[in-house]
């Protein structure tokens, strides 16, 4: 038996009982014309159907024995005479009907109240955040305040710079070649000068922005001094030390720093 015959055989029962569409029926009929094996198979099914038909006599006999006119009366008597014992079952409710039943109304009311409260809370929270946001957007109104903050920061940074510079310069003034070892001088020169040069670069824009001309002039002089110091710090000789000390005294840097610090402290924002 080839594959085609196997497929046809699976359809033969439906073919015999008239359950196939026209195309399939025709296809099977054509195959049966040329295939003795499938013809034999169909014959076997027909024999079985005949065997099944052998019970038809019994069925007909049994049906003939029933009083069909009386049966509905008997059944309805059984149903209606015991009606109280056979109540009709309530109709099956659909999902929608279950949802809209009256006893669930308190649940829905509670849900509705919860929903409304939740919405209100959300609205309040969102409104507050919106207000905050809108305040943030009108920050230009308080730009003055921002400027004052920046000015105060510039003032403090400058004060800090002056104070540190003052200490370094004082160290230089008080340093003497006999008491101060060479290594100390070199470290002092390189580390302090580099730090203060960096700090100066940071406060430069602030000094420009707020037109702190006097402070800028003194800070520039200090910067120049530290710059010179870094150039010679590797081989800081006694002569260099004396030159720097002279320069500090000549320009009265410590005095100027003191005055400027006082001015800045007085002008606290």
């Amino acid at each position, binding site marked *: 038996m080839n594959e085609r015959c196997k497929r046809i055989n*699976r359809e033969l*029962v*439906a073919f015999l*009982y008239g*359950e196939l569409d026209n195309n399939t029926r025709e296809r099977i009929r054509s195959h049966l014309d040329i295939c003795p094996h499938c013809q*034999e198979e169909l*014959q*076997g*099914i027909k*024999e*079985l*159907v005949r*065997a*099944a038909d*052998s*019970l*038809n006599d*019994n*069925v007909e006999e*049994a*049906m003939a*024995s*029933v009083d*069909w006119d009386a*049966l*509905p*009366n*008997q*059944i*309805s008597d*059984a*149903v*209606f005479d015991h*009606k109280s014992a*056979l*109540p*009709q*079952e*309530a*109709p*099956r409710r659909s999902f929608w009907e279950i949802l809209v039943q009256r006893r669930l109304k308190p649940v829905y009311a509670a849900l509705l109240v919860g929903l409304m409260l939740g919405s209100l809370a959300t609205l309040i929270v969102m409104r507050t955040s919106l207000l905050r946001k809108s305040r943030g957007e009108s920050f230009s109104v308080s730009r003055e305040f921002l400027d004052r903050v920046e000015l105060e920061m510039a003032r403090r940074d400058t004060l800090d710079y002056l104070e540190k510079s003052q200490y370094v310069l004082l160290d230089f003034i008080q340093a003497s070649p006999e008491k101060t070892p060479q290594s100390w001088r070199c470290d002092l020169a390189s580390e302090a000068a580099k730090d203060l040069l960096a700090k100066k670069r940071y406060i430069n824009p602030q000094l420009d922005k707020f037109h702190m001309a006097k402070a800028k002039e003194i800070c520039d002089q200090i910067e120049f001094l530290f710059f010179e110091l870094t150039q010679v710090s590797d081989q800081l000789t006694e002569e260099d030390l004396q030159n720097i000390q002279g320069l500090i005294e000549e320009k009265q840097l410590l005095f100027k720093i003191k005055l400027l610090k006082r001015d800045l402290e007085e002008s606290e924002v």
Partner: protein
Amino acid sequence: MEITRSAEPHNVPLLVGRIKEGDREAFMEITRLYQKKVYLLAYSYLRNNEDALDVVQETFLRLYQKVNMFRSEKNFQTWLLQIAKNLCIDYYRKNYSRNKDFRSDKDVEEVNVPAQNDKNSHSFSDIKRVFVECLDRLTEKQRMIFVMKHYNNLEYKEIAQILRISVGTVKSLHFKSTQNLRALMTPYMGEKT
């Protein structure tokens, strides 16, 4: 599953509506319309007149009880035969299965039909008896489908709706039931059945 309507009297929905209101005449009319179909299914499955009549009565009792659950978009005959089918299966399980030498869900290979010496000497009544015996040895579903198709002349579509399975499954189970019956009947019907 596709719901199809087999041809049924036009007044059936009206009668069903009246039964819901407790109308006795409508109930009797519906009983008159469908009693033979229910009986045919029950008798073909159980092959006992009294039992089949019991199933018919019980089916219409259930119809009255459950009529509110019937949805008008469904086919009434299919719905009624679903009730009848369930009752037949329950009835069979209660009253028939326990006295059998085998259970209906046994594989065909396990079934041991007594062999006959002279294969061609069976009388017509022998064939009937043997066929009934072989039919009993099919699985519950195969037997129900064979009975519905052969004796009730139901279409595959209707059977599928009653059993709540696909048409393809009905077709496949009908084929298997036929093959199994042929295998069981072979010793009684000659070499090629």
